[in-house]
């Protein structure tokens, strides 16, 4: 039974290579990268066998290893991976629960994560091979760690598949992901702010000693403890690790048994009333399209992710710069233009987000102009407060109000140019995105180099168009403040020109090749 599952998993892996050449290339690069990292770590662990402070090595390994174990637990939930070995797929085969559980868990050993983990664990065995008994102990704990990780990921993937089976909860993982990201930034700050030289060692020791007694780190701590002579705690931790593996196995069996008889769950549908945005917008084609875009921004998690990124990106950009010692005075000028870049860029693949629903526009003969303008209205509306309020706040921090016109000009130009580019590229170069209803982190299979090119071109394009405005603003700051007013005028002028040209080309393209856009959505 187990061998058949192995065979199945191998076949599934092999089929990964039966896609388009570019995907295979990407896959191979990814694999090589993972393997490279694993081998580097392996080498590092082997060297640790011969050098370094034993307790320091132990503490670091415990902390790092615990993070890895935690990753196996969390990543399937947050990312919501498509589980090819979902127990429910075997529900109709009538396999006894125990063999099925064993087979599924065993087959998880075949796979990139398990392979890289095994390589690294092999390293830890060598690190702790400081005697026969120690080596044996290290070997046992390595196996325990491997089994723990596999079982954890199986359980969490299954739970995720079960809990996230409804559309709403699946989208919610998108929010979780973003929240995690936001929560990580203060952690990063704290970590960066810590005086590692003085308190680092102590902090590491404390964290490691705590983790060492939890199922996360027990197996990793045992051989280290043994090597430092603490045989008692080593055995105790090994018992903890073994017990948690057994517990996990029981949980896994229950989960499998449970999933075989639970096809999924139904979420209660939410009731809305009225037409929402459609009531608030003009009752014509442009208004309806704009209202639809607004509605989607509010209801579709794929948009949430890109929209939430807009305020987060400046933070992420400023943090390292401020740590690197760039004065806040200048940093204050960064966020608003940066947010405008992202806001304009958000729309660069807008048609692809509709997926095949775009047929409605094609079948109804919607005018390209109406479509283009309607889609841009929400972004433009959103840009007004960002530019207006954002610039005011920025400049008040910066402290020199003469710069305000430049700030407004540059931001407006970037946003409008971005929207102009987006207007054209979204009809001309739609590339596959996450499908409606999928987790926002479930990346589409077919992302090739073309899409990366489109992404970077639209991103850089708006900045390039705004370069003259940047130059005028620079003159204003270094030469004569009067240049700031020119920057404002130039920014609005260039921006408007860019957006009009973009919309015009986009509309023409839309009118001519609606069926091609639909075809590309179908291929995605």
């Amino acid at each position: 039974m187990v061998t058949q599952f192995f065979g199945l998993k191998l076949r599934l892996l092999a089929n990964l290579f039966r896609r388009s050449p570019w995907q295979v290339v990407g896959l191979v690069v990814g694999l090589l990268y993972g393997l490279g990292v694993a081998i580097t770590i392996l080498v590092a662990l082997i060297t640790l066998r011969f050098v370094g402070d034993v307790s320091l090595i132990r503490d670091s390994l415990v902390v790092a290893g615990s993070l890895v174990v935690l990753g196996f637990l969390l990543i399937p939930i947050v990312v919501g991976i498509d589980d090819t070995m979902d127990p429910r797929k075997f529900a109709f085969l009538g396999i006894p629960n125990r063999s099925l559980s064993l087979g599924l868990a065993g087959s998880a050993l075949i796979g990139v994560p398990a392979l890289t983990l095994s390589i690294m664990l092999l390293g830890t065995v060598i690190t702790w091979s400081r005697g026969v008994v120690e080596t044996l102990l290290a070997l046992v704990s390595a196996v325990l760690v491997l089994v723990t990780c596999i079982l954890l990921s199986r359980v969490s993937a299954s739970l995720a598949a079960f809990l996230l089976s409804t559309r709403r909860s699946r989208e919610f993982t998108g929010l979780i992901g973003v929240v995690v990201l936001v929560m990580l930034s203060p952690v990063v700050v704290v970590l960066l702010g810590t005086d590692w030289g003085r308190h680092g060692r102590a902090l590491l020791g404390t964290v490691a000693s705590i983790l060492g007694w939890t199922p996360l780190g027990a197996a990793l701590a045992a051989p280290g403890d043994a090597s430092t002579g603490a045989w008692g705690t080593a055995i105790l931790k090994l018992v903890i690790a073994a017990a948690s593996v057994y517990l996990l196995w029981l949980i896994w069996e229950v989960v499998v048994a449970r999933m075989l008889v639970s096809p999924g769950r139904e979420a209660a549908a939410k009731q809305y009333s009225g037409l929402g945005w459609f009531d608030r917008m003009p009752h014509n084609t442009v208004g309806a399209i704009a209202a639809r875009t607004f509605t989607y921004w509010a209801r579709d998690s794929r948009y949430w992710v890109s929209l939430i990124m807009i305020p987060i990106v400046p933070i992420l950009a400023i943090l390292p710069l401020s740590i690197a010692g760039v004065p806040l005075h200048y940093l204050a000028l960064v966020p608003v233009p940066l947010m405008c870049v992202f806001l304009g860029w958000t729309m660069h693949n807008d048609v692809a987000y509709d997926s095949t629903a775009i047929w409605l526009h094609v079948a109804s003969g919607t005018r390209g102009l109406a479509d283009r303008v309607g889609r841009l209205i929400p972004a433009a509306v959103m840009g007004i407060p960002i530019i207006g309020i954002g610039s005011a706040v920025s400049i008040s921090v910066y402290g020199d109000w003469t710069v305000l016109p430049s700030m407004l000009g540059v931001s407006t130009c970037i946003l409008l140019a971005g929207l102009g580019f987006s207007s054209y590229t979204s009809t001309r170069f739609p590339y596959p995105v996450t499908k409606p209803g999928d987790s926002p982190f479930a990346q589409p299979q077919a992302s090739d180099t073309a899409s990366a090119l489109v992404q970077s071109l639209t991103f850089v394009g708006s900045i390039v168009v705004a370069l003259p405005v940047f130059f005028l603003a620079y003159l204003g700051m270094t030469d004569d403040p009067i240049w700031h007013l020119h920057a404002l005028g130039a920014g609005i002028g260039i921006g408007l020109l860019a957006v009009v040209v973009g919309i015009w080309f986009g509309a023409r393209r839309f009118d001519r090749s609606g069926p091609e856009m639909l075809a590309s959505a179908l291929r995605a």
Partner: protein
Amino acid sequence: MPLDSESDDESVADRSTESKAARDVHPNVVDQPEGQPATIKPAASTPTVRKPAVRKPAARKPVAGSVGTAAVAKAAASKTSGAKTAAARTTVPKIVAPQTTEETAAVTPPETAVAPATLAKPTARKPPARKPAVRKPGVRKPTVAAPTTVKPSSAFASSLANSATDETTRPYATRDALEGGLQAAARTAKIASQVPADAQTEVEQQTEAEPQTPPRTPSTAVPKVVQTTPAKAAPKAVPTTAATASVVPVSAAEPAPIVIEARGLIKRFGHKVAVSDLSLTVRAGSFYGIVGPNGAGKTTTLSMITGLLRPAAGTVTVHGIDVWKRPNEAKRVIGVLPDRLRLFDRLTGAQLLYYAGTLRGLDNDTVRARSADLAAAFGLDDALNRLVADYSAGMTKKIALACAMIHSPRVLVLDEPFESVDPVSAVNVTEILQKYVAAGGTVVLSSHGMDLIQRVCDHVAIIVQGRVLAAGTVDEVRGQNTLEDRFIELAGGRKVAEGMEWLHNFSD
């Protein structure tokens, strides 16, 4: 699908009226009644045998007795819808014709007479005006040509209609074929939903029954009736030929204008040829079914007709407008229900309808009014404020169908409109479509339901491997067989499963 017979019957006569009449009469009487002239009679004898098994005998009998009265009544009742339908479909004429002489007069006023008998929704429909133009010419001629012959057939047809209608349709009878509007349909829907159990069972029974009787009288056209009769009666009898002959000229006489004309369509996907040199002609007022095995190119063809998929070669004109040269004008007259494409499902049902209507250029008030009507007609009232993403498959299909109709297009192109739609809704949808056709609209739909197509459509095309293997009226295509048999024959025949004996030796 549920009401097979009913749809067919409509054209012939109004169910409600007839059914009553039919019921009163007794089964055995059936064939002999009118006298189908000498020719036909022979056939009549046979029919008796068959009928009992399949359909409710009672219904048919009426023919004899009812023929005169019933037929007229039916004609009247069926009134507009029936008449129009008939007219529209070339075939129909025959039926009408016979009665025409006598009935024509009756037809106009008929409501009165009918109303009492029928349940009553006799609200008259305007349509009458229309019928005359289209149909009459065709119809009458036959009358003249072979009056005697025809009559019987018509009577027979009506009887059949009755039979089919009466028991089966009963629940639905309430909803009158008469009333045109969606509201009527909506009402029906409600009624139907109230009586669902019985109705459905009945329907199902009937459905099952039908296949057995190969020569089913398609509701549609007279010709069918004629042919059918002979078939039933006895294997092709002389009369048949005669009848057919008389009929044919009629239908050929005045073909309706061509609405959809596809010429030499070609589409390849990679190395696979999905559609190769496919031509299709659909005339105004037809209810055109497209059938074909999986992967035959039905969806591809319909997509090319509706401007969703650019053909590699070939032309498509809809109402004389080249779809691929003047897409925006062409798209205005087409309503589309694509298969397997997403909807903007983060919108609520109401929002989606509003969106679809607005994109089609309707103004605010019109969209709202029509949305309400459509929601009522499709039984979606309760679902309008939920996200389309949370709809079941059938509801999604219905809301998409509503979106296709909201701009009252001249042509509806529907890809698998009944897939995963429940029987009650399917009946409603069918009825809405039939009324739409009766009012001069044209419907092209694809389906895997042979029964449905045979019952509902007047024309059919069988597409296999990207080519049209057969096209024409349903009767022409199916000949003496059921459409299903004909289809299977064309699509490569039944595969005899050999070497599957192990399947019959159960593992435990």
